[in-house]
């Protein structure tokens, strides 16, 4: 396969301190085979974009190193750049160009001839359902369509390693699923490193998933690996604003947030609590633990450990529920 020289993606004690700021990345160390799709999740400001920009040779790390196979992001940047492509988080289409012009100019920048670039651009736009809009000015497209144009550009390139920083932000649920299908189709041919805030997206796409919190990689593995890091198999959610009920949880844990109560526990206890709630007429949902639960659980535990005190961690979790952001 073309990508055999990609080898492993390795990061070793990767640290980034922006001038005059706290550590954006704090000693990231991991290695992962550079095949399939790697999904990086983490809260706002956890360092996803910083990590992706360092790996894509756009930003110098403060210390530590990172490499793909034998190609170091600092020392062998020009070799690595032959193989990579990125859609940055804040990338926007140029308003005075059309989708066709945007994608084909990108391919020409990568050294493809005009005719070939036009052909590939046309196919890529079609794959993303954009054929109808290919010759309209970008400024007349909707936000999600503009995003698709940029994604089409990198997907149609010859790059073997693709970085997508929140590629589906702003896409409607149907388009997002179409994007997932497309990603699964091209999986195997290349290595895709993507970030997202949609945890179902990470579940759907990620061969491996990494979780960043405050510049540290707190977990990495397959979805099953991550499931195992939560001791409990079931998750229950009781939305706020219902009558007060006393629930006692002995095996699992109860996390109270602004949006209600979340209980992570064993199958048996989940069902016994369910029976009580049904009897009292309280609305709730019950599911096997999802990535969402795992994320919520691990982040709260990480904070608890850092704060060294449970009370504070629970306070911070309230912020997670959607109210004010905490620093």
């Amino acid at each position: 396969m073309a990508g055999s020289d990609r080898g492993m993606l390795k990061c070793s004690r990767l640290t980034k301190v922006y001038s005059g700021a706290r550590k954006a990345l704090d000693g990231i160390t991991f290695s992962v085979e550079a095949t399939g799709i790697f999904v990086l999740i983490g809260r706002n400001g956890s360092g996803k974009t910083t990590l992706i920009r360092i790996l894509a040779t756009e930003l110098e790390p403060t210390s530590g190193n990172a490499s793909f196979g034998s190609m170091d992001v600092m020392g062998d940047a020009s070799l690595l750049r032959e193989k990579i492509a990125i859609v940055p988080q804040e990338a926007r289409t140029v308003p005075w160009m059309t989708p066709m012009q945007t994608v084909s100019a990108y391919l020409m920048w990568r050294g493809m001839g005009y005719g070939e670039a036009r052909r590939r651009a046309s196919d890529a736009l079609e794959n993303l359902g954009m054929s109808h809009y290919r010759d309209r000015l970008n400024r007349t497209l909707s936000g999600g369509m503009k995003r698709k144009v940029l994604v089409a550009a990198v997907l149609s390139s010859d790059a073997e390693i693709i970085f997508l920083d929140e590629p589906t932000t702003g896409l409607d649920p149907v388009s997002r699923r179409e994007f997932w299908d497309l990603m699964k189709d091209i999986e195997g041919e290349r290595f895709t490193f993507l970030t997202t805030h949609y945890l179902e997206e990470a579940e759907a796409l990620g061969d491996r998933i990494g979780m960043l919190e405050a510049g540290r990689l707190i977990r990495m593995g397959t979805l099953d690996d991550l499931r195992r890091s939560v001791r409990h198999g079931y998750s229950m959610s009781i939305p706020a604003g219902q009558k007060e009920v006393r629930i006692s949880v002995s095996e699992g844990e109860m996390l109270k947030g602004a949006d209600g109560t979340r209980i992570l526990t064993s199958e048996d206890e989940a069902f016994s609590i369910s029976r009580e709630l049904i009897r009292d007429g309280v609305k709730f949902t019950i599911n096997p633990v999802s990535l969402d639960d795992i994320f919520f659980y691990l982040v709260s535990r990480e904070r608890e450990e850092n704060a060294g005190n449970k009370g504070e961690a629970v306070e911070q979790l309230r912020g997670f529920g959607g109210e004010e952001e905490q620093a």
Partner: protein
Amino acid sequence: MDSVEKRSRLSQFSASILVNSLYEMKNYPVVLVNTVLSPISFLLLIVFVSHGALIGEAVQGGFIMSMFGAGTSLQADLSHLKNDFKLQDMVVSSPTSWMVYVAGMAASELVYSVPALAVLAILAFYFVHMSPAGTLLFVAVLFLVFASSMAIGYTFATFSTDIVQSFAFSRLISTLFSTIPPVYYPITYIPLPYRYLAYLSPTTYAAQLAQYEGGYVHISPQMFAASWIILILVAAILFALAGSKARWREK
């Protein structure tokens, strides 16, 4: 998949020109009016104020300013594409080298200047009289001004992080190098103590050489040589700075 060897430099170079000038001119023709007007408006002012006496110098000045202005535009365009569209980030993380990208962008600024240069060329045909050798030297002067302004434009663009900063840089540069120095008229029009200030700008030397070739001023052989040396040195230093100080990858 395309192999590395098959990458065409010409395609890479053309992409910058397509994005930064041809597509823009095609889709927003109004931008052309501006490129013609800005070097010519000052020319007209000088011609009116001097009752036509300085038309030759003013046309030459228009050429010099078009070339210098191209660097200011390069800075604005590069900053805009980098900061507002993150296009430069996409290009950094790709096989495109900064040299091909910037060379293409510089060429796109020349393409943009074509309408203004055409108008100036017609005026020059009627009002400026230079020998073939003088014309060649004049073109060389213009080239040096263009090269210097490109190097300044690129270097500043890599440092700007937003539109306000970028705008401040370009205003500063164009005031220092084009509004204050005697580009559209002979330096002897400036009273003496201020003349020394004008000599701080490389565009002053460019204009002086042009005016000499046009037969509008007389300069000593020493001044002639010094002007060339200064123009070449400035261009070389600015290029060295661009190569070493400009940030392709962010720190």
